[in-house]
């Protein structure tokens, strides 16, 4: 195990993880840089159940570039097939050229994306907590996937279905709801002259 860092959840549980895992959180990274004497970082706003989910995500992403927010190609140094033996400059141009032609890298990225999509196919309560944790801990890819998970639950559903999924109280009168939908009804009617 490489250098590790200790995190304390809001409910007092301790998690010891590798730096590469924890440092996907920009907040944890900057707190660790501040030279803490006991290298134990408290995270009062995240409880253990959520933190363990967050760390599961980070563990999976530890050795991959930010696939969602930067759509980065895998640099040839991280290619599972070539293990750093790729010749040539390591500019971003050659990186993207590398993974465009390297089947192993493409497969690895797609697998990660698939895993992420499964990861957020959870109940919306958990997505809600992941969204807030990703925001609080500043983890870009987790934020992206949590937002995507919530958006997926909205997409294509009508207001009543949305309310059921997100446990929203309907504080509109039927007339008010109708008015709002009427205002945007043009979106559902493609123009047929």
């Amino acid at each position, binding site marked *: 195990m490489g250098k590790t860092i200790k995190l304390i959840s809001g409910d007092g549980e301790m998690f010891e993880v590798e730096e590469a895992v924890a440092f996907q959180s920009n907040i944890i990274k900057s707190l660790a840089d501040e030279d803490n004497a006991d290298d134990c970082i408290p995270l009062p706003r995240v409880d253990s159940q959520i933190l363990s989910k967050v760390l599961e995500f980070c563990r999976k992403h530890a050795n991959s570039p930010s696939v969602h927010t930067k759509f980065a190609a895998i640099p040839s140094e991280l290619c599972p097939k070539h293990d750093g033996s790729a010749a040539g400059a390591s500019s971003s141009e050659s990186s993207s050229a590398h993974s465009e032609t390297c089947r192993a890298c493409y497969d690895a990225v797609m697998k990660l994306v698939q895993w992420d999509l499964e990861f957020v196919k959870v109940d919306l309560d958990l997505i809600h907590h992941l969204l807030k944790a990703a925001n609080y801990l500043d983890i870009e890819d987790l934020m992206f996937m949590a937002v995507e998970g919530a958006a997926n639950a*909205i*997409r294509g559903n009508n207001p009543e279905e949305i309310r059921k999924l997100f446990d929203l109280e309907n504080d509109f009168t039927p007339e008010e709801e109708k008015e709002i939908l009427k205002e945007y009804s043009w979106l559902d009617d493609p*123009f047929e002259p």
Partner: protein
Amino acid sequence: MGMWEVLPLDLLARVFSFLPPDSVARAMAACKHWLACARSRAAAPRHAPWLIALPARGGPACFAHDPALNRWHALPLDFLPCPLRLVAPVGRSLLCRLTASSDLRLVLLNPFTRQFRHLPDLATPRRNPAVGVIYSSPFSVIVAGGASGSGYEPKVELYEDGRVDRWESLGPMPVEFAVRLTVWTPNESVHAGDGAMYWMTSARAYSVMGFDLRRRTWREVKAPMADQLEWAALVRRPNRKLGLVGGAVGGQGTVWELTDKDAWAAVAEVPAKLGQRIWGCRKEAAGAALGGAVRCVGDERTVYLFKDFGSEMLVWEEERGWRLMEGRRRVSSTPIKAALLHPTLSVAEIFHASM
């Protein structure tokens, strides 16, 4: 109260930013908190902008093309007290002019949220000037040239939205530029990273006028292949460079970028077969509007080329190259003016400036 009802607005707005407009509309109808969030906050757009076309002579509706679904929509304009003609996009709204007024009178319009606002009248009224938009926050508008009385108006004016409620003079411009910008009314303007506002004359031989906003000086830049281009238009390029898209006989077409030395570097070439589908093979007979009929609308990421709104479009994106987007039917047979605009359902604050 459910947790999604108390989620911080910025996070909820981010969720909405991942949704196409019709899903946002349905989310708005779910509860008041979500309605307020979607109405007040427009997170950075993630989808490609839509193509918006306003009939040149005004009309009861304008047309919007959704590139994700390749679908056209008619957006009603019945809330407008007077017909408007599109001048340029400004952020997530459109700068338009009153069709009925021969002196330039500008109006800010968002056809998605049905909001509009008049800009103050120019200090020196004029007909047919060049209009340039600087989109920062807030936005600014420059007006140059035009005809007033029996002569050409050489005064340049600037309006900075939200700062003062009037136009300010930027001094005179050389008369020959005023003439060119008036007689051959330019369409789009591009505010480039070098601090200049560029317009292009709408007739051959194409040339580009640049107004340096800091030094208040004017210069002319010859367009590439100026004598051969049948149609041409200016677009913004990435890194805020000035771009020029133009086509010639035989389906030939190029995207250029202006370099630091006022030279044009070709960035992409249109495959001739695709160009021919849009602007034909042969040189049109004198008088026929080949050049005028090809519309070019673009931003830093995408360029659309088409003849009629609703028919086939040639689309260019830097990473993807050229592709044809299937036409459905002719959406509008009247002349139109088009721009790229991100659809927004949020009520924009720029419509609430002091008026």
